[in-house]
């Protein structure tokens, strides 16, 4: 057993598929009871990494640990420590919500009385209790995902993996699911490890890593990562823009430009800078707005590409995806 503070840890993890490197020298550490976001475009190696961590794939080299257990040598203990919501639903559509959870309880060896209580508690937590005796095939996409999250939590896992949990959901279901996910570390004492390529979802994570072509290209809190692109932009309109600009240039150390009737103040901490501007200009100010950098800006800066746009790399990604599909069946 490998003792440490991190609940998830990888050491130089590598996974090759027929000469294609899907995961490239990955080093990760995730603290207990946090939400960790794994962000990257399709085919970046996110699902492959999850599959290694949840013992469905063997790494080509390197090691991975969950809850102190080696994902290869101690696969059985790792499996007891984790819950997983895969990208594609893995519910039995012919069984009811309740039966799906009961099946899971038996599979993980829960005691009968306990599993009954746990099922009811989780169905209520996920707002599915009213529909518990309906076959899953009648559930909407959002309900199925919530049921899968409930199922993943049944056996008190230490880590809950969510692979693109909101993929294919409408905005309302997405919001509904998120509301539940962000509460999990507190309510169910679990570490959430999730992949996504939605920027706004990544922003609620405690920490995150950006992955591209199987390599981690940046890691930190969402705030830290956004600071990498050089801070916020404050947009300002004053009674006399020209004069205001000159005054600000003397008093604030920042890039200041004027364009289209607006003054841009680049690369500042917006929450500190706005009060400062107002103090300096006083009644001169007509309007102020703040633009914070998004994680998309971060990705753009690091790779020169938009995270969700098609790019020359798409072919590469698609080939990795198809390999992955073939090997995922393990």
């Amino acid at each position: 057993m490998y003792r440490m503070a991190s609940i998830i840890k990888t050491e130089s993890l590598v996974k090759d598929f027929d000469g294609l490197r899907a995961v490239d020298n990955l080093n990760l550490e995730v603290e207990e009871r946090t939400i960790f976001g794994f962000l990257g475009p399709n085919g970046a190696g996110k699902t492959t990494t999850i599959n290694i961590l949840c013992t469905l794939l063997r790494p080509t080299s390197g090691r991975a640990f969950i809850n102190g257990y080696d994902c290869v040598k101690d696969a059985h203990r790792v499996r007891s420590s984790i819950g997983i919501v895969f990208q594609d639903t893995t519910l039995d559509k012919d069984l009811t919500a309740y039966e799906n959870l009961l099946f899971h309880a038996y599979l993980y060896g829960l005691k009968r009385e306990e599993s009954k209580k746990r099922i009811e508690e989780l169905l209520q937590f996920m707002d599915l209790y009213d529909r518990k005796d309906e076959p899953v095939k009648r559930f909407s996409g959002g309900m199925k995902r919530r049921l899968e999250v409930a199922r993943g939590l049944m056996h008190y896992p230490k880590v809950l993996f969510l692979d693109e949990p909101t993929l294919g959901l409408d905005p309302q279901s997405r919001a509904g699911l998120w509301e539940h996910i962000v509460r999990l570390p507190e309510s169910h004492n679990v570490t959430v490890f999730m992949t996504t390529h939605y920027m706004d979802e990544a922003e609620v994570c405690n920490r995150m890593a950006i992955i591209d072509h199987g390599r981690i290209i940046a890691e930190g809190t969402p705030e830290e990562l956004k600071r990498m692109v050089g801070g916020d932009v404050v947009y300002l309109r004053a009674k006399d823009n020209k004069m205001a600009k000159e005054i600000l240039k003397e008093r604030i150390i920042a890039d200041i430009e004027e364009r289209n009737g607006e003054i841009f103040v680049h690369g500042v901490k917006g929450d500190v800078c706005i009060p400062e501007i107002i103090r300096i200009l006083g009644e001169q100010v007509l309007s102020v707005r703040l633009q914070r950098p998004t994680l998309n800006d971060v990705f753009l800066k690091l790779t020169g590409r938009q995270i969700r746009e098609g790019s020359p790399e798409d072919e590469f990604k698609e080939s990795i995806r198809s390999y992955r599909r073939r090997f995922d069946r393990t």
Partner: protein
Amino acid sequence: MIELKVVYVIVMRELIKFFREKSKLVSTMARPLIWLFFVGMGMSRLVPQDITGTDYMRFLFPGIIGMTILFSAIFSSISIIWDKEFGFLKEILVAPVSRFSIVLGKALSGTLLSSLQAMLIMIVSPLIGIYPEMGQIAGSVLVIIVLSFCISALGIIIASFYESLESFSMIMNFIVMPMFFLSGAMYPLKKLPLVLKYAATLNPLTYGIDGLRHILIPHGMLDFPFYLDIFVLLSTSAVFLFLSTYVFERGK
């Protein structure tokens, strides 16, 4: 290592799903009855009684029980392919349970479902002039169970080589149908050309059907001694069970 809870819950799931789908039960029961009465009655006009005095309908009956088992056991086991396609298999594979328990659960659910259907077919035996006594019924049930287990385990091995639902017709045409025709179900092995006869001796179903004939029409035309039938069924069952755990573990 066998986890009884796991075996139990896998069997329960198959049973629930089977009985919830009433049309499935009706259609799997219809096939053997259609063969028995439509094919059997037609053929019995062509085929005279054999030297032992057994008419074709009675000769065919154990074969039809074997057919019932073949189809329902294989279909039950290849539901693994459905589980792969619809993702449910992943739910089972990431659980902390031994692969042997999973395979055993699948094999036992196939055994249970196909034995049940075979016993239902047994009920029509008086209609074709077979009146089994208690001992014969008990003996048949035992052979039915062993044969069902054997074919179910074989089904798991087959299922582990296929990935998607399109493979269904492949399995049907190149495995199930040849197994049925080369099992002595419809014609005695003695009358087959040599090559086909040898092929049939490699088919576990042959021994199951022969075993049932020993019990139901003891003075009819038989191919092997009864003890050999039982020995082959039991040993292939064991081999298939371990082989299926192996291929399942290998992850294919």
